[in-house]
C-alpha cells in the first residue's frame, strides 16, 4: 500500500542513491563533497521516518555540521589534480568492473533469495510520547556501557595520535602568551626616572616649580 510514508521513503531513498552516485562520479571534488552532504541529509530523513530522531539529528549535527565542513575546508584548499587522479583509470577499470560485478551478483543472489526477502521485520510503531533519545540513553548506559566506554577510549586514542602526529614545536615561531601579557605590571614596562630640576634654573628655584617641570617630562 502506498501511504505517504512509503512515498517519502522512496523519495529519500532515491535521493540518497542519486547523491551517492554523484559523489563518485562528480568531476569536481567540491561537488562530490556537497553531494555527500545531500546523501547524509536523505539518510537522516530515512531515519526520521523510522522514528530514530536522535540518530537522524546527530547525523546532521556531527557529519553535516562538523565533519563535512572540515572536509570541504580541506578539499577547497587542496588543489586536487583531476587529470593525475584519472590516470590509470582505464587500465584498472576491467579488474574493478569485474570485482563490482561479482559483488553485485552475490548481492542479488542473497537478496533475491526468497527466504531472505521474507526476513524483513515489521517496523514497530511507538506511542507519541516515545522518546528515541531516552531509549538510546538507557541502553547505552546499561547494556552497552562497555562498548560505549571503549568507543570513548578510541576517541581518546585518536586525540593522542592526532596531537602526537601534528604537534611540532617550532623554535622560530613567535607566540603570544596572553596570560603573560595580562600579568604584566607597570613596573615591568615603564621605568620612572626622577630627574633633577633643569640645570639652567638656579638652585634657589621654588620646589613646586621643579615638581611641575618634572611632571611635564614624564
Amino acid at each position, binding site marked *: 500500500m502506498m501511504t505517504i510514508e512509503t512515498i517519502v521513503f522512496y523519495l529519500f531513498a532515491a535521493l540518497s542513491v542519486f547523491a551517492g552516485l554523484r559523489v563518485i562520479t562528480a568531476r569536481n571534488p567540491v561537488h562530490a563533497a556537497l553531494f555527500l552532504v545531500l546523501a547524509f541529509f536523505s539518510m537522516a530523513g530515512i531515519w526520521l521516518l523510522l522514528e530514530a530522531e*536522535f540518530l537522524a*539529528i546527530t547525523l546532521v*549535527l556531527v557529519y*553535516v*555540521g562538523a565533519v563535512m565542513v*572540515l572536509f570541504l*575546508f580541506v578539499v577547497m584548499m587542496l588543489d586536487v589534480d583531476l587529470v593525475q587522479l584519472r590516470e590509470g583509470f582505464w587500465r584498472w577499470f576491467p579488474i574493478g568492473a569485474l570485482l563490482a560485478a561479482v559483488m553485485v551478483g552475490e548481492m542479488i543472489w542473497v537478496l533475491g533469495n526468497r527466504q531472505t526477502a521474507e526476513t524483513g521485520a515489521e517496523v514497530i510503531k511507538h506511542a507519541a510520547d516515545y522518546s528515541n533519545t531516552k531509549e538510546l540513553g538507557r541502553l547505552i548506559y546499561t547494556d552497552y556501557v562497555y562498548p560505549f566506554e571503549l568507543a570513548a577510549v578510541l576517541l581518546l586514542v585518536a586525540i593522542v595520535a592526532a596531537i602526537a602526529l601534528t604537534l611540532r614545536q617550532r623554535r622560530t615561531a613567535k607566540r*603570544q602568551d*596572553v596570560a603573560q601579557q595580562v600579568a604584566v605590571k607597570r613596573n615591568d614596562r615603564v621605568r620612572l626616572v626622577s630627574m633633577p630640576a633643569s640645570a639652567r634654573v638656579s638652585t634657589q628655584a621654588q620646589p613646586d616649580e621643579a615638581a611641575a617641570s618634572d611632571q611635564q617630562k614624564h
Partner: protein
Amino acid sequence: MMELLQTIEQAGQGLLGPFWGPLWTLVKIVVIVAPIMGGVAYLTLAERKILGYMQDRVGPNRVGYWGLLQPIADGVKLLMKEIIIPTGANKFLFVAAPVLALVPALVAWAVVPFADGMILANVNAGLLYILAMTSLGVYGIIIAGWASNSKYAFLGAIRSAAQIVSYELAMGFALVCVLLAAQSMSLVDIVKGQQHGYGLLGWYFIPLFPMFVVYFIAGVAETNRAPFDLAEDESVIVAGFHTEYSGMGFALFFLAEYANMILISALTSVFFLGGWLNPFEGWPVLGAMTAWVPGLFWMLAKMSVFLFIFLWFRATFPRYRYDQLMRLGWKVFIPLTLVWVVVVAAWMQTPLWFW
C-alpha cells in the same frame, strides 16, 4: 484567544478535511516568519541608530520620521539592483548559497516557544535540532566563498568554516549543561524547568552562569558578528565571503545574519532566562502587579536585551585577530565548558541543587 483558535481549527477541519493540517501549519509558519522578517528589517535600523548614538551621531533620519522608513528604502534599493555573477563562478552554487544561508536561520524557529503553547512543533529533541540547524548555516558561507571564484570571498569562507566549527563545540557543551539541568531536550520543558515560583531566581543563568556567558559569546561568534566578524573583515579581505554578491543575493546574506542574531537572542532567553516566564513570578508585590503581562512580552523583552548587547558589542570591541579567536574558542571556552559539565553533573547529585 484559545477559544477563537479552536473554532478556526474546527471550521477548517470541517471545510477542508485532510488538507487542513498542512494548510494550518503553513499559516503558522507565515505567522512566525513574517514578524521575524519585519524584525530583521527594523533591527538594521535599530543597529544604525544605536551605533549612531554610541558614536555621537544621530543615525539615519531622512526617510520617514526618525528614519522609520529607511529599511524599506534599503530593501527596495537592493531589490532593484542588478545581480552580477562573476566570470568563472559556479553559477548554480553561487545562486544557491544565499538561500542555504537563510534557510537554516529560519528553519530553527520551528522549535522555539514564544509563549506557553505558542510553538510550531514541540519536538522532544528540540535542543539537538537547534544545534543541527544552526550548524548548517555555515554551508551558505562556505559555498558562497568558494563559488564566487574570488580570493577574498574564499578567504572569508575558510575563516568562517574554521571559526564556526570551533565555537560550535563550546556551544554544544554549554547546551549539554542546560539539558542536564532541565533533564529534557524539549525547549518547552526547558522553560518549564525554570519555573519554580521564585521568579528569576529559578532561571538557569544562576547555576549555569559561565555557560550562559559562553553560550552567548559563542552565539555572537556563530553569527559572524563583531568582534568575531573575521569572515567579512572589511579592512583585510574587502567584504569577505559576500564580496561578489550584489542586490538580492547580498540582501539574503544580510537577512540570514540578522535572523541568526534574533535566533541566538531567543535561544539564550529560552535556555538561560526562562523564556516567556515572568521574572517576578511569586514575588510579594511585583509578582501580583505583573501577573497580567502576557508571556510573549517577557520573551520579546529578553530578546531585545540580547539584541541590544549584540549591537553594543559591535560598537565597543575591536575585531579579534585570527589566532586570538581560535585561542578563545579552543583554549578558554571548550575547557571551561567541559569542566562545567562535570561540575553541574556532580552538583545535581547533591542536596544543594535548587533548580
